[in-house]
């Protein structure tokens, strides 16, 4: 039986399937593994950051800093690999520690100073972007043999599709994200927080550690997305990934997560990402449409999903189950 909470997820998956069938009906070449592989590779960084955003939105918050953190991570890696002889893996660990700490600090401010997440992460967004500019205002190329090794790692599927490492990292992030959200106490606390912070506190949910954990997770995943993005572009540029936080929020909402928090699925976000990627691919295939049509379609989809959520909320609260299930033993 499909429960009402699963309905948005089902709608998202059906939307994706319908869109895919429509697109490949028009352009049969879209059915190839090559397109699917590119869909994963091109959206890897967005997908990773959207997993973090899912947790943030599930808890009833928002994280506007992630786009800037990705850019900062890219520039930081490029500059440190250019100016020092440090191994990229050590640089990865360093930058992840920094972004996790950055996220945790924002979470701590949100919790202890009782500030709206919107404002705190907006400040974080300017801060991270500013730091990226301080490191370098130019695009810094990354040339390191280890990068070449990582970029050359792929599995060639029949049909010519190359499933690259970055796409796999995204898939792994989604799977781990699903397990964390649904199978750990931390994940349950995130949902509880989104259902109502006051009630969650009364029920014994540790608000401080949960809030800090959520933003640390989002910051860390933004760092990981930054690493993936630097592998994707082989450069660090402080002007890159402007507005990615909004794309991530859009993917989460299209994936069926309630913006007010407390309800949604990490898996939904995955299909949200695929839908957004599919629209882009379609426009590339068409060739005559302006790429801005992507934004228009995503805008329309967002509206549709927000209406759907409202409708569902209305339907579930208006029709409470009567007591027929109740019987004395």
């Amino acid at each position, binding site marked *: 039986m499909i*429960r009402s909470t699963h309905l948005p997820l089902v709608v998202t998956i059906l939307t994706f399937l319908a869109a895919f069938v429509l697109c490949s009906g028009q352009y049969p070449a879209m059915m190839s593994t090559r397109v699917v592989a590119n869909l994963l590779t091109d959206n890897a960084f967005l997908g990773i950051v959207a997993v973090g955003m899912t947790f943030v939105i599930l808890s009833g918050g928002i994280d506007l800093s992630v786009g800037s953190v990705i850019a900062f991570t890219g520039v930081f890696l490029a500059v440190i690999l250019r100016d020092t002889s440090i191994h990229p893996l050590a640089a990865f660990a360093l930058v992840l520690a920094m972004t996790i700490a950055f996220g945790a600090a924002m979470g701590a401010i949100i919790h202890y100073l009782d500030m709206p997440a919107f404002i705190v992460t907006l400040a974080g967004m300017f801060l991270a972007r500013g730091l990226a500019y301080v490191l370098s205002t130019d695009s810094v190329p990354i040339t390191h043999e280890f990068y070449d090794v990582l970029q050359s790692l792929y599995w060639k599927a029949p049909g010519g599709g190359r499933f690259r490492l970055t796409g796999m990292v995204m898939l792994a992030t989604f799977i781990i994200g699903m397990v964390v959200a649904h199978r750990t106490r931390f*994940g*349950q606390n995130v949902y*509880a927080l989104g*259902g109502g912070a006051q*009630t969650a506190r009364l029920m014994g949910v540790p608000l401080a550690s949960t809030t800090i954990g959520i933003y640390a997770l989002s910051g860390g995943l933004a760092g990981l997305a930054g690493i993936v993005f630097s592998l994707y572009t082989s450069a660090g540029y402080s002007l890159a990934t402007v507005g990615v936080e909004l794309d991530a929020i859009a993917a989460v909402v299209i994936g069926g997560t309630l913006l007010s928090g*407390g309800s949604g699925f990490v898996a939904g976000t995955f299909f949200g990402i695929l839908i957004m990627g599919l629209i882009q691919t379609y426009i590339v295939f068409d060739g005559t449409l302006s790429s801005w049509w992507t934004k228009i379609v995503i805008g329309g989809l967002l509206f549709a999903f927000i209406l759907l959520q409202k409708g569902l909320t209305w339907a579930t609260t208006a029709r409470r189950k009567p*007591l027929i299930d*109740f019987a004395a*033993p």
Partner: protein
Amino acid sequence: MSEDTRPVLSATGISKFFPGAIALDSVDLTLYPGEVHALLGENGAGKSTLIKCLTGAYRRDAGSIQLDGEEISPTSTQESQVHGIGTVYQEVNLLPNLSVAENLFLGRQPLRFGFVSQRRMQREARRILGGYGLRIHPAEPLSTFSVAVQQVVAIARAVELSGKVLILDEPTASLDRDEVEMLFKVIRQLKERGLAIVFITHFLDQVFEICDRATVLRNGRVVGTRELAHSSQTDVVHLMLGRQLESRVQDRAPQTAGKTLLEFKGIGRKGMLEPFDLAIREGEVVGLAGLLGSGRTETANLIFGAVPADQGEAWLRDQKIALTSPRDAIRHRFGLCPEDRKTDGIVGDLSVRENIILALQARQGWFRPLNKAKVNELAEAYVKALDIRLASLDMPIRFLSGGNQQKALLARWLATNPDFLILDEPTRGIDVGAHAEIIALIEGLREKGMALLVASSELEELVAYSTRVVVLRDRRQVCELHGEDISTRNIVAAIAQGHLEEVA
């Protein structure tokens, strides 16, 4: 319940002081295993303060609490929960977005290899809820179930966490009859398991149906503990109201039988107020009597359209009218002075003058402001007429005393020249002098031919100014007293028995 078992909880000499007030004065409460103990008292009697002291939400200022013979001093509700005292409130404190099972197990989910085992959680939840006769799918989100089911889930969680004392704070306030029945079944089961249950409610019938003993609080003191099997409702009501209840014959101005102004036919709202008929004539004060929660305020709000009725009709001077919002009511020249003056009545930071003209200006429409001279004239006239004592008309109304605020609110409605005025607890929290003035005002307005509906918990007061008294009980009109029948004694009898006793 047997008397010789040792009490599971005994609180002795509990006191709590607030600045300028004694909320609890050396209160004793003893709970035995397997008993349902009602905690009764009117608003402000100290019930919720006592509960908060027991659960650690407040620190008590004196006294001791012994649980199973051991002294405890909980500093938070979590701590008292660990000791074994669980509380369930009227508004269910669970998370509607989580599933039933997740709500039951939040914070203590069964783990398998460090991961939450959904399967075991569902199974356990099904077992626990089955114990309460609740056969629901525990993976469904809590919000899909009725309040009654949510209430049982909350009780189940509290019992699982605590398991010695269960405090139910008005659990039945928003339930209908069948749901109450179901909840009582659960309570009886828990009683058999040996839990001590504290039951707080305003519904006396329910108290006598489910409870073994009752402790009655008044003004922060215990005024009596009764074995309910050996006492009557009248006895308990007397304890709760505790006033000098001798029948007094009032010198009442002869009833000026005016024309019928308003007639309500079968008006009511599901889950809030049973449908009732009420006709109000000009020059008449209709009193609404009843215990707290009996439907006094609900009646006032329904008639004023603050909460729209879902059935019945209203007639004004033989014309059918719609009352779906306070704006409608104001247009028909109604006025309402609400019970909670501070939150529903005054606009604290606006000046006295602005507060007085608020309703008149609202009726006129915001785009046709009253001119300054008119405003001043009106405000000054009412300040004088009602003897509102203030330093200046420009001072924020929140600096006025309660009695003067109430008079300013009255002035607000009188300025609209109403035909029908509803007063909900017009004398609550004001000093004796102002009290008498407001009563005199009500009588003055009646003599001028205005129709008034006054809800009050002060029975003497109702007896003093009402030409008719409607008695409410469990959100239903149970009887109407006229003329000579109006006495505190008859009102108490009607509240307790649900009908008018033959007056000796």
